[in-house]
């Protein structure tokens, strides 16, 4: 989950999020280097007594400051396209979970075998035990097995919502009448938090998402007990 004064992304819990983190670091480094160079040149320009007012043409420097930015852009585009295509890879999922947005809670359905379905409401602050995360905890978490490709189908019953979990690198809009598919793999067991990411009315900020990933055996025990 996010922590106070956080600047960067949350820790990556899926391979795609790791790729996104590395791509972001690469691109941000390029941005910092360009900014530093520009600021340095501005400082040099403003602190010199030398002047030359007869410049007519500058063929050589024009070549340099056209070719070099083109190379920089290609250096950004190639990793970007790589991550884009990685996100689109066909992975045959082991499990399908449906997340349906309502005003103002989520419903999770696991219908591959038995019809397991439950609602997930935020725990109001007055009912929150000590030490739990305010506005992030829910009564029933979405459980899933770790290290398995999961397909999620996201939809909504009333208005637009969006199912987002930053540490998994997932954000998918929940559109009424439409099934939006996203796939991911969670590499570690743990509890991951997210919040509804499309304005949906008065309690838009109060319908969080909590994903709990477990080893397969424990997940199977949970789903057998819950069905």
């Amino acid at each position, binding site marked *: 989950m996010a922590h106070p004064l956080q600047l960067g992304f949350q820790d990556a819990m899926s391979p795609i999020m790791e790729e996104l983190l590395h791509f972001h670091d690469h691109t941000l480094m390029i941005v910092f280097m360009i900014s530093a160079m520009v600021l340095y040149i501005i400082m040099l320009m403003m602190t010199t007594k030398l002047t030359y007012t007869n410049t007519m043409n500058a063929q050589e420097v024009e070549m340099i400051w056209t070719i070099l930015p083109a190379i920089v852009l290609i250096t950004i585009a190639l990793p970007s396209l790589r991550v884009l295509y990685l996100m689109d890879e*066909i992975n*045959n*999922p*082991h*499990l*399908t979970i*449906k997340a*349906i947005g309502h005003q103002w809670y989520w419903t999770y*359905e696991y*219908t*591959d075998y038995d*019809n*397991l*379905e*439950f609602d997930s409401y935020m725990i109001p602050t007055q009912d929150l035990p000590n030490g739990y995360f305010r506005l992030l905890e829910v009564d029933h978490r979405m459980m899933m097995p770790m290290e398995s490709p999961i*397909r999620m*189908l996201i*939809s909504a019953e009333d208005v637009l919502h969006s199912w987002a979990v930053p540490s998994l690198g997932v954000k*998918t809009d929940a559109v009424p*009448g*439409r*099934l*939006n*598919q*996203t796939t991911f793999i969670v590499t570690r067991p743990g509890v991951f938090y997210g919040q509804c990411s499309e304005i949906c009315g008065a309690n838009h900020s109060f319908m969080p998402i909590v994903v709990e990933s477990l080893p397969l055996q424990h997940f199977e025990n949970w789903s057998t007990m819950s069905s």
Partner: protein
Amino acid sequence: MADSIQAKLDNYKTASFDSRFPNQNQTRNCWQNYLDFHRCEKAMAAKGADTTCCQWYRRVYTSHLLGLG
């Protein structure tokens, strides 16, 4: 033939990748399999044949369908 269909049904984990629906919007996938299930049932019943093979479509659309619980 019937054995392998039963084996496939027993080994069903979840709906696999369908290249007719490669993109994010899977609404049509659910609808198509629902249609195929009912058509299969109707056709097999009309011929008087075993409708077990139609269960595959039912499993696939059930994996996709909302509001089943």
